[in-house]
C-alpha cells in the first residue's frame, strides 16, 4: 500500500496549476498588461524599416548597420508585425479576451432573465439616497412610485407585502461591452483572411500611342505582373479574368507659386473588359479613385517617363525600337534607365543613363529644372559586347550586366557619352550603329490587389464602435423606493405617518446620481397632496 504523497502548502497538482494559469490569463490585470505589451511591441516597427512596407529601406538599413543586422534579423525586427513574439502577444490577448468574455456571456444571459433585485434592508445606507415623511398611505406612495419609475426603469413585479418598488435600467451597457470585445475577434478574422487569401501586385504600364500600339495593355494573369505578393493561401485561380488598356495619361503640374513642380490631378484614361470577351468600358483612374473589377481593385500609384528610342546596328538593321520605362530618382523626375539591344550586330548594344524632363545646363552641370517633360534630353553611356542577355538567367530590366561588356570610348580614349534630344539621331563610334530619340511616352504604375475580408473587418470595427458607445454611454442604474408606516417617536410629531426612502445605485461608478435621487423625490412629492417636503433630507 502506497502512501499518498504529502503535499506541502503552495504545491499544486497539474490540474490546479492549469486552472491557476487560466485564471491568471483571463484576469483583467493580465489583459491590461498584455494590452500595454502590444503597444510596446508595436513601437520597433515604426522606427526600424519594415520589409513588408519598404523593402528598399530595409536593405539600405542593413548595409548601414552590418553588425546589428544579424541580431535584428534573429529578433524579426524587420517584420515585427509577422514575428513570432508579436503574434504571441496578440494571440495571448485574444485568448485572454475569449476567456474573459465567454463566461461573461453566460452571466449576462442569466442576468437578462433575472428580475431587478429586491431593495436592500437599509436604503439610507447607500451613498445616494434620500428620505422624507408624508401623511399619505404607504400603498399610495408605492403605486405612484411605480408610475414614476416605469417611464425610465424596468420594474420588479410587485409582490404582496413587499413594501418597496425596485427598478433597473442600462443593462445594455454590458451588452455593448460584450459586443465590443466580440467584434475585436471579427476584425481579427477579417484581417487574417486578408493576409492569407489576399494579394497585391504591381505593374508598370507604358501608355498606348501611335508609335507603340501594343503598349498600354494588361491582362490579369500572373505572368503580366512586375511584382506580386500573395498571401499564404492564395491560388492563381483567384485572379479574375479582365484586361485593360491605358489609353492616355495626364498630369496637372503646378507651374507657379511655392509649390511649382508639384503634381496633381493624375488621370489615366483606361478601357477595360471584364472576362475574356466583355464589353469595353471606360474609367478615369485617379489617385483616391480606384477601379473595382469584381473583387479586384486597381489603383494608380505612380508615374514616370519612357523615352522612345530606335537603335540601328552596324548593318543598319533596327535592333531595338520602342519605349523603355525609366525610374524617377526623386521629385524632379530625373530618371534612370537601361536599354538593351540584344540582336545588334556585330555586338549587343546597351545604354545606361539619365533622362532629364526639362534639361538645362546650369554652371556647366546638366540638371532638370521642372518635372514635366517640357524639354526632354537623354544622357547615356554606351556598352557593347556580351551583356549577359543570352545565358537564360533572370535579369532586371533596370540593370545592365556590365561584367563581360566593354564601355564604348571616344577616339581620344575618354568614355563616349550619348547626349540626345527628341528628333535627333546620333552615330555611335566604331561603326556600332546609331541611336534615334523618337519621343517620350508616360508610364503609370498600377497596383492591383484583392483584400478579401476587408468588409468583414470594416463591419467588425463598426460593430465594435457601436458596442463601445453602448459600454461607455449607457448608464446602468438601480433604483429603489420604500414606503412604510412609522410611529411618532416618543409622541413627537415628526411630520407624517409614512416614511419614504429613495436610493439610486450607479453601477458603472462613473456618474453622479444625487440629482437622479433628487429628481425622483421631487416627482414623488410633487404629485402627492399632503406630503411635507420641508422634512425631506438628503444623504449625499
Amino acid at each position: 500500500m502506497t502512501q499518498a504523497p504529502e503535499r506541502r502548502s503552495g504545491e499544486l497538482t497539474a490540474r490546479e496549476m492549469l486552472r491557476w494559469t487560466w485564471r491568471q490569463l483571463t484576469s483583467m490585470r493580465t489583459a491590461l498588461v498584455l494590452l500595454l505589451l502590444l503597444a510596446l511591441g508595436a513601437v520597433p516597427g515604426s522606427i526600424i524599416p519594415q520589409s513588408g512596407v519598404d523593402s528598399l529601406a530595409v536593405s539600405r538599413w542593413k548595409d548601414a548597420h552590418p553588425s546589428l543586422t544579424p541580431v535584428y534579423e534573429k529578433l524579426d525586427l524587420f517584420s515585427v508585425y509577422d514575428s513570432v513574439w508579436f503574434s504571441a502577444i496578440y494571440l495571448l490577448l485574444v485568448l485572454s479576451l475569449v476567456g474573459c468574455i465567454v463566461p461573461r456571456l453566460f452571466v449576462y444571459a442569466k442576468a437578462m432573465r433575472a428580475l431587478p433585485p429586491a431593495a436592500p434592508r437599509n436604503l439610507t445606507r447607500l451613498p445616494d439616497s434620500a428620505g422624507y415623511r408624508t401623511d399619505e398611505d404607504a400603498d399610495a406612495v408605492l403605486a405612484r412610485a411605480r408610475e414614476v419609475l416605469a417611464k425610465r426603469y424596468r420594474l420588479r413585479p410587485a409582490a404582496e407585502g413587499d413594501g418597496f418598488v425596485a427598478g433597473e435600467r442600462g443593462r445594455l451597457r454590458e451588452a455593448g461591452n460584450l459586443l465590443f470585445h466580440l467584434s475585436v475577434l471579427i476584425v481579427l478574422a477579417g484581417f487574417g483572411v486578408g493576409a492569407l487569401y489576399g494579394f497585391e501586385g504591381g505593374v508598370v504600364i507604358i501608355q498606348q500611342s501611335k508609335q507603340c500600339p501594343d503598349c498600354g495593355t494588361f491582362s490579369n494573369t500572373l505572368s503580366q505582373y512586375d511584382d506580386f505578393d500573395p498571401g499564404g493561401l492564395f491560388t492563381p485561380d483567384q485572379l479574375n479574368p479582365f484586361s485593360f488598356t491605358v489609353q492616355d495619361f495626364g498630369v496637372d503640374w503646378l507651374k507657379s507659386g511655392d509649390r511649382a513642380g508639384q503634381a496633381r490631378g493624375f488621370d489615366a484614361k483606361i478601357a477595360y473588359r471584364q472576362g475574356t470577351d466583355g464589353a469595353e468600358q471606360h474609367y478615369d483612374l485617379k489617385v483616391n479613385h480606384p477601379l473595382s473589377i469584381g473583387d479586384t481593385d486597381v489603383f494608380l500609384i505612380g508615374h514616370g517617363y519612357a523615352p522612345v528610342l530606335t537603335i540601328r546596328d552596324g548593318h543598319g538593321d533596327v535592333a531595338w525600337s520602342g519605349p523603355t520605362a525609366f525610374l524617377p530618382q526623386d521629385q524632379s523626375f530625373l530618371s534612370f534607365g537601361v536599354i538593351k539591344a540584344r540582336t545588334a550586330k556585330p555586338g549587343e548594344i546597351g545604354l545606361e543613363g539619365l533622362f532629364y524632363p526639362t534639361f538645362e545646363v546650369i554652371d556647366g552641370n546638366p540638371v532638370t529644372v521642372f518635372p514635366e517633360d517640357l524639354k526632354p534630353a537623354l544622357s547615356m553611356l554606351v556598352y557593347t559586347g556580351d551583356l549577359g542577355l543570352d545565358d537564360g538567367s533572370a535579369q532586371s530590366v533596370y540593370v545592365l550586366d556590365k561584367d563581360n561588356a566593354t564601355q564604348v570610348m571616344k577616339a581620344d580614349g575618354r568614355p563616349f557619352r550619348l547626349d540626345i534630344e527628341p528628333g535627333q539621331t546620333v552615330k555611335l563610334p566604331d561603326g556600332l550603329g546609331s541611336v534615334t530619340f523618337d519621343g517620350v511616352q508616360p508610364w503609370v504604375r498600377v497596383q492591383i490587389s484583392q483584400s478579401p475580408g476587408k468588409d468583414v473587418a470594416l463591419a467588425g470595427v463598426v460593430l465594435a464602435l457601436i458596442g463601445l458607445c453602448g459600454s461607455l454611454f449607457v448608464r446602468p442604474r438601480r433604483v429603489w423606493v420604500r414606503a412604510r408606516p412609522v410611529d411618532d417617536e416618543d409622541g413627537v410629531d415628526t411630520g407624517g405617518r409614512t416614511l419614504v426612502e429613495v436610493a439610486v445605485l450607479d453601477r458603472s461608478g462613473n456618474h453622479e446620481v444625487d440629482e437622479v435621487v433628487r429628481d425622483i423625490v421631487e416627482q414623488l412629492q410633487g404629485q402627492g397632496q399632503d406630503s411635507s417636503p420641508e422634512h425631506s433630507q438628503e444623504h449625499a
Partner: protein
Amino acid sequence: MSNAAWETLSNQAVGAAGIVYFLALLAHLAEWASLRQPKGTEKRVAVGSAGLAEVAPAPTTRETERAEFLGRLGFLLTVIAAVAHAVSLVGRGMAGDPNRVPWGNMYEFTLTGSCLVTVMYLVLYRRLRLSWMAPLVLGFVLTVLMAARLWLYEPVAPLTEALNSYWLMIHVTAAIIATGAFTLGGIASAVYLVKMRAQSRLPEGAELTGFLARVPTLDGLDRVAYRVHAFAFPVWTFAVLITGPIWAHQAWSRYWNWDPKEVWAFITWVVYAGYLHARATAGWKGRNAALLALLGVATLWWNFIGVNFFAGNNSQHSYADRPPAVVGPYDVRG
C-alpha cells in the same frame, strides 16, 4: 477678397488670438491671485463656505466678487480669442485655391487642433465645471499656438494629390476632435496626479491651499477625466480604425499598412483602451489609470508632431513635399 488677403487675415487673426489668449490667461491668474488669502482670513472663509455664509457674511465678499468678475472676464476673453482663432482657420481655408479645409500641413493641423481644445473646453465649461482648468488650458493653447507660428509656419499651398479627398474632411476632423478631447482629459489626469501627491505629503490634519485646494476632489477629477476620455475614445476609434483604413484603401491600395503614423495611432488607441480597462481593474484605479492617460496623451502628441519629423521619410502620412507617386526598383523577370 483675394487669396493673399485671406492669408494675411489668417495670420493677423492668429496674432490677435494669441494676444487675447494671453489676456484671458492674465485674467484667470489674477482671479486665482485675488483668492489667495493671508492665513488668518483663510480659515474664516472655509467656515463661511461650509454653510454659515448666510448667517455671518464672510469678510471677503469683495474679494470673492472681484474673483468672480475676473473669472467671467477670463471666460469672455477666451471666447473672443477662440473666435479669432476660428477666423484664422477660415482665412487659411479661403486662401487655398481651390478653397479647402484648413488642415493640409502641420501648421494647419496644429492651428486646428489647438482651436478644438479651446472650443471643447468652452463647450464643457459649464457641464463639467471646468473653471479650475482655465489657466492650464490657456497656457497649453498659447504655447502650442506660439510653437506653431514660430516653427511650423508654412505659406498656403495646394493640397498634395493623395490628400485631395473628402475623406480628409471626415478622417482628420475626427482625429483633431479626439486630439482636443484627449488633451483636456490629459490635463485633468495630470492635475489628479499632482493633487494626489500633494495630499499624500500633507501632515496629518492639514489641508491643501492655493490652486490645488480649488480644483475638484480626486474623485471629481477622476470623473471629469473619465468622461472626457470616454467621449474621445470612440471618436478616435472612428478616425483611426474606420475612416483611416477606408481612405488608406482608396489612396494607397492597402487599408492597413503599418505605416509609422498608423502604428502610433494604434499604440495610442491601445494605451487608451488600457486606460479604460484600468479604471475597472482593482489596483489600477486612480493613480495608474491617470498615468496611462498621460502616456496616451504623450503617444498622441508624439504621433502628431514627432513622427512627422523623425519618421517623415518613412511615413506616407508625411506631409512634406513628396509626390504621391511611389517609385522604387522592382525586378522584372526577362
